[in-house]
């Protein structure tokens, strides 16, 4: 019996025009369509694979506004068994520290052997929430696995670094983060979509977790954004069509810029 909680985030669509809320410099989450972070789909996929090979349950956990229910639903459609959605107005604008606090408190209420995370969220993208949750829960973190092998209560990951490939192992209760090198995540099947409608989703707010509103949200953040500036558009460059001399012209351009 292996129980896995997968932490997933609802994020603004990366292919839309993402921007900031001009009043408080937080990410504008209202005027952009959101979805389950693509990078968290890999974590859901790996958790499902582990449970399918033996037995156990996959619970998806998200912290986010009303719309974040979409992220939970998508994971349930993929095959997760149940969902937990922590939703409280006071959480809006939380930084990674506050998010990790809420996640850690929620995890304390859940039964699990492992917690799986994505490698980074596709919006804020600090990639530190898994480590922070592990630090708060006093758990080891086996992070950035490109290959995940679960054997009883131990997890071995293969990590592809710059100078070396490493195998890292942890056992007991563990935090695991999963990269996009682990293999394609499945699409929900029609059956999965229908089944998801009957799967239980718990809604928790801060009082359910014993977290005080003053510990989260924008005002509790340990950093502040002082300004946001759109990148100046690149000035239109010169585009030529190769007529047998494209390579030569390219090098002439590079030479004019002193690159050759």
């Amino acid at each position, binding site marked *: 019996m292996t129980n896995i909680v997968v932490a997933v985030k609802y994020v603004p669509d*990366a*292919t839309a025009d*993402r*921007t*900031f809320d001009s009043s408080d410099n937080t990410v504008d989450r209202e005027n952009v369509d959101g979805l389950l972070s693509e990078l968290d789909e890999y974590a859901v996929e790996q958790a499902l694979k582990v449970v399918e090979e033996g037995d156990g349950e996959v619970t998806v956990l998200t912290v986010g506004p009303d719309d974040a229910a979409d992220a939970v639903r998508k994971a349930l459609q993929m095959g997760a068994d149940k969902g937990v959605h922590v939703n409280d107005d006071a959480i809006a604008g939380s930084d*990674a*520290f506050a998010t990790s606090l809420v996640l850690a408190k929620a995890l304390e209420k859940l039964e699990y052997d492992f917690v799986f995370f994505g490698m980074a969220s596709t*919006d804020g*993208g*600090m*990639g*530190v929430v898994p*480590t922070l949750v592990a*630090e*708060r829960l*006093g*758990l*080891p*973190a*086996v*992070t950035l696995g*490109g290959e995940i092998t679960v054997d009883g209560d131990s997890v071995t990951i293969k990590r*592809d670094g*710059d*100078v*070396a*490939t490493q*195998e*890292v*192992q942890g056992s007991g209760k563990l935090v695991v983060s999963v990269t996009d*090198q682990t293999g394609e995540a499945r699409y929900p099947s029609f059956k999965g979509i229908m089944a998801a409608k009957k799967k239980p989703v718990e809604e928790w707010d801060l009082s359910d977790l014993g977290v005080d509103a003053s510990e989260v949200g924008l005002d509790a*953040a*340990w*950093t*502040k*954004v*002082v*300004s*946001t500036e*759109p*990148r100046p558009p*690149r000035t239109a*460059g*010169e*585009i*030529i069509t*190769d007529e047998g*001399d*494209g*390579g*030569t*012209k*390219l*090098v002439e*351009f*590079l*030479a004019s*810029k002193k*690159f*050759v």
Partner: protein
Amino acid sequence: MSEVIVLVDVVDGNATKPSLELLTIARKIGEPSAVVFGADVPASLAEHGAEKIYQLDDAVYGEYLVGPKAEALTKIVTDASAAAVLVPSTTEGKEIAARVALKTESGLITDAVDVSVDGDTVTTTQSVFAGNFTVDAQVTKGIPVIAVKPNSVAPEAASGAGTVEAVSVDVSDAAKGAKIVSTKEKAASGRPELTEAAIVVSGGRGTGGDFSEVEAFADTLGAAVGASRAAVDSGWYPHSFQVGQTGKTVSPQLYVANGISGAIQHRAGMQTSKTIVAVNKDEEAPIFELVDFGVVGDLKTVLPQATEAAKARKG
């Protein structure tokens, strides 16, 4: 002056260039103290202004993922009443920084591309949303813990005392939960390091799996080679060379994209390059929106010609 604790990376006995950049930034904030894990203390640290060098030479740091290093760094930061902590914005650096920040109840900023100092105020600059926005931020709690990207400043020489202080820390069992069971070194490519290179020449699905033209052109320019995720996923080039959201962010003087369409996730890793050049068969490819110079054509003929032309110019 207060100490600024700088975590440095030492590879084959030498401090990496990003580490020397961190020392340069640290001098703007206070007095740089380098932290070195391992047996080697490179002379370049003192030559770039390190007044103190804390050396932690214990096998435990190589046997586990970041836990032991994070505990050791926290102790050094606390004992020194440090004014700030700077680490390289690598995967390991960020994980160590996250744990140190939480343990010391300090704010954390990752992936800074610039750090400026005005009196006691440290302001960082980050590039977000695939490089479409620049964000300035400050730490408001504890001391600033900042993970800085390579190429943020030019390393400046400055003579520091470089006094080595051996530090030993009793690492808790809790920090030893993620054990490194095997390490397989990779063969060096012989090319410049991707994130530090002045020029990057990269290839995508349009190479059709053969990177020889891309590599040949890179070598005439003394460039690093990069790849799109499509090329990496197809097994044509190793993952450590992937440029983009889930690969490396590069910001070279010159980026040459070959057979790469320019998806938002790829742009996220190269959009801040100074000069961008692309070769692509499809004149509609979004990469052409970014370029200073673009060639609509087949890379299989354009690149070999460019390689010859570049060689001819070098004589």
